[in-house]
């Protein structure tokens, strides 16, 4: 530790001119405990040294008329670096421990197997084994200290863990061997055998297992590392008409940030100048770069591909979408699905139970075993303690969840917690909202069928002028179509909206009518020859509207909400998984039927009011289905909340992160299929792990106790038990890592 005053850094808001510097500095300096305060005007930070509390400093700045907050130095990537450095240190320590223990254990084992007997008969043998015993004690101290200290500490707390088992197991073997060496006379002649090699080997092997496990564990957090790595380190902001490069943690809200092509967007914001294409695939999984113009949103962590932009920071620091995603993924990675609870409740009883079995096994050998019974009893008791592995049980669920949730995040799927993960894997019925989920959610003019009018352009001009100001979603489509063709709008008089029918108005002396067949009938417009055409348009999931000028039909304008290009294949993927796919929509029956037919959904409900969506969910649940609901998170919130799993579909990164069980960051329904696939794969992985860990312990412990001995004459050596135990937890972590290879998308 360096003997230095502690220092902290504050970010100052509202300091507009250089003269503020002195004011702020003196305000801070007059706070008790401050040794010095130095402000950097370019990046609006003050470095304060001294023992004053941050809150006091902030108060002082505020009383001088500015806002301040503490600069959070523990940035995510720093934490990550520190963690990796600590892990690396620990890894080296474990390998060193392994080396020390094995360099005693392996020669001893070779001696016992091929060269001599490990029994104590002569005085010379006693002396040499005493030296070996002391060397083993050295190994126990240097390489195994953490097991013994950990065991003792948890014992004091009335709890027991793997350390307890290792400490008691290796301790028993060593004490027995020392008794053989120091006072052989208390033991029968045949039982005078030493097990120093077992103690040394077990400590070595378990340290080796822990080292390898640590390495494997590092890989389980790859996804979160990748997300954290997306953060830019610095940002160029414009302050006082000058460009300054500052750390991203110093960017304030409303700062104007400049991003050049090839650079990462440092914080969230709204474009104020320039246009570009931005690659958002790292967050959304959407491969095609997104065009950004003035007033579009940009998101931290995404990559600017082509143009230079200036944007105004709207969310900085912990509030950016990326920071929230990282936070959420981290949280979800550490939450446990219900399937893991059994293992948890078992682990509370596991270690003491193993200790009891170990004692019982020793008693059985003492009472019924062959001579030398006491040696057999010791070996079996030790082996039972060593082979039992509570950590394999403990690791089974968290390791898979860690990898699975991370893998999902890579595909742009944010899973809220372990429970959502597990339920998502069991969904039997999936309700899809039509608008915005299956379809783009933005209607477009698809057809203009001319009747008495002569050209599309004039029809569109009049129709658009008429619809200008109307808030109907179909009106928007027509206006957009007119805008695309650069058609000027005309002035409208005596506008009148007729609910459920359409609109009427006058324009340049003509009377205009725009609406459905009902409106036309009421206004005596002759539709002869065109109703058939309108019907066939409706069958194609389009909404036909009649447009009449001066009482005569001018044209039919059809508007449709196009189906997303990959909805069909994504729905196929869901159905291939055995999931019943159901469509809900507020649209009319005809449109709904046409869309359902096109995307291959046989069960659909049309004209469903938003408030009835939730009752549809309930209905399906009452039929015993596990219901997933996919919608846009705003209109569908009640249904999303009621469903067993709610999937909120977002477009881009503009997502309601807090609202749903699962958030799909990209608009494509493949995200949904990915979410189901990842959760299924993760659950399968967890089951494999749990099964493996249970079977390992259920089979291993009795064999170690010697149940095979009466029939087959097999009794495990404690060394083999040590190896088995070390590699059982390694296997669990490695199996979880297999999930990383999981490919969610069908290629």
């Amino acid at each position, binding site marked *: 530790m360096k003997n230095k005053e502690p220092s902290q850094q504050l970010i100052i808001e509202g300091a507009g001119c250089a003269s503020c510097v002195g004011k702020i500095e003196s305000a801070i300096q007059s706070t008790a405990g401050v040794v010095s305060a130095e402000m950097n005007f370019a990046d609006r930070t003050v470095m304060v040294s001294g023992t004053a509390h941050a809150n006091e400093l902030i108060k002082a700045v505020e009383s001088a008329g500015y806002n301040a907050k503490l600069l959070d130095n523990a940035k995510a990537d720093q934490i990550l670096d520190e963690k990796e450095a*600590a892990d690396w240190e620990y890894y080296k320590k474990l390998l060193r421990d392994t080396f020390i223990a094995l360099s005693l254990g392996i020669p001893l084992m070779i001696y016992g197997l091929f060269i001599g007997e490990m029994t104590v008969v002569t005085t010379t043998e006693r002396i040499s084994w005493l030296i070996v015993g002391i060397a083993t004690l050295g190994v126990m101290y240097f390489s195994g200290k953490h097991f013994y200290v950990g065991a003792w500490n948890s*014992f004091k707390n009335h709890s027991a863990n793997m350390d307890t088992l290792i400490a008691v197991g290796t301790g028993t073997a060593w004490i027995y061997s020392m008794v053989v060496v120091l006072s052989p006379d208390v033991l029968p002649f045949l039982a005078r055998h030493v097990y120093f090699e077992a103690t040394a080997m077990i400590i070595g092997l378990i340290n080796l297992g822990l080292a390898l496990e640590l390495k494997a564990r590092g890989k389980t957090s790859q996804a979160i590392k990748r997300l954290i790595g997306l953060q830019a380190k610095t940002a160029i902001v414009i302050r006082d008409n000058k460009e300054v490069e500052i750390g991203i943690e110093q960017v304030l809200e409303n700062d104007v940030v400049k991003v050049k092509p090839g650079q990462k967007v440092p914080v969230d914001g709204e474009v104020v100048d320039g246009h570009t294409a931005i690659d958002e695939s790292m967050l959304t999984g959407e491969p095609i770069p997104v065009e950004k113009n003035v007033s579009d949103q940009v998101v931290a962590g995404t990559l600017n591909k082509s143009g230079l932009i200036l944007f105004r920071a709207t969310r900085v620091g912990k509030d950016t979408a990326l920071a929230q995603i990282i936070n959420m993924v981290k949280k979800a990675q550490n939450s446990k699905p219900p399937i893991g609870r059994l293992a948890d409740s078992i*682990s509370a009883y596991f270690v003491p139970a193993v200790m*009891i079995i170990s004692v019982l096994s020793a*008693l059985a050998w003492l009472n019924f075993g062959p001579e030398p019974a006491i040696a057999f009893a010791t070996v079996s008791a030790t082996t039972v303690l060593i082979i039992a592995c509570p*950590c394999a049980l403990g690791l089974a669920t968290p390791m898979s969840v860690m990898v699975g949730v991370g893998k999902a995040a890579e595909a742009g799927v944010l899973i809220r917690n372990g429970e959502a993960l597990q339920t998502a894997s069991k969904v039997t019925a999936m309700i899809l909202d039509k608008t915005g989920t299956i379809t783009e959610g933005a209607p477009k003019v698809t057809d203009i069928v001319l009747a008495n009018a002569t050209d599309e352009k004039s029809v569109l001009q009049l129709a658009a002028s008429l619809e200008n100001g109307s808030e109907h979603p179909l009106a928007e489509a027509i206006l957009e179509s007119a805008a695309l063709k650069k058609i000027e709008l005309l002035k409208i008089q005596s506008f009148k909206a007729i609910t459920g029918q359409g609109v009427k108005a006058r324009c340049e002396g003509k009377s205009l009518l725009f609406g459905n067949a009902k409106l036309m009938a009421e206004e005596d417009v002759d539709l002869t020859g065109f109703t058939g055409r309108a019907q066939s348009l409706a069958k194609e999931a389009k909404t036909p509207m009649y447009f009449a000028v001066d009482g005569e039909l001018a044209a039919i304008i059809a508007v449709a909400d196009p189906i997303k290009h990959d909805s069909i294949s994504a729905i196929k993927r869901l159905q291939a998984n055995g999931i019943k796919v159901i469509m809900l929509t507020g649209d009319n029956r005809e449109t709904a039927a046409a869309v359902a037919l096109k995307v291959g959904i046989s069960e659909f409900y049309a004209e469903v009011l938003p408030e009835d969506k939730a009752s549809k969910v309930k209905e399906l649940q009452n039929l015993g289905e596990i219901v997933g609901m996919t919608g846009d998170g705003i209109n569908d919130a009640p249904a999303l909340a009621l469903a067993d799993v709610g999937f909120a579909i977002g477009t881009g990164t503009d997502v309601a992160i807090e609202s749903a069980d699962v958030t799909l960051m990209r608009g494509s329904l493949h995200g949904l299929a990915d979410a189901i696939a990842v959760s299924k794969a993760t659950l399968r992985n967890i089951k494999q792990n749990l099964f493996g860990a249970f079977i390992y312990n259920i089979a291993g412990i009795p064999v170690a106790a010697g149940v095979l001995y009466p029939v087959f004459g097999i009794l495990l050596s404690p060394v083999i038990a040590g190896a088995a135990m070390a590699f059982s937890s390694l296997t669990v972590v490695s199996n979880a890592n297999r999930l990383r290879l999981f490919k969610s998308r069908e290629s």
Partner: protein
Amino acid sequence: MLIANIVGLATIALIIWWFWLYKPEAKNALKTDVEVIVKDGVYSPALINVPTGKPIQLRFTRLDESPCAEMLLIPELEISEQLLVNKETEIVLPALTIGEYKFHCQMNMYKGLIRAI
């Protein structure tokens, strides 16, 4: 032989009593700011009594390098926090209602209990 059997059964009885039947008593007074050391496989204190209705600050210092000690979870409160070696990590709990809140590592090897009374 008889002695060995008696010793064995007594050991079993002791294990059952010590690990399962014994109910620990928390000694610390009600505090809203608690320091917890993570070292050698345990949290100390492992049993924390806190008052209800007030936000609680827990300051964890992890002195244990084992990867098990890395994550601190309080499932009931949906809290999961990464603890850095040789660093203090502050966790602020919301005002609690009366009850018991377990905290543990990711593998449930390190265990502790917060009792809001």
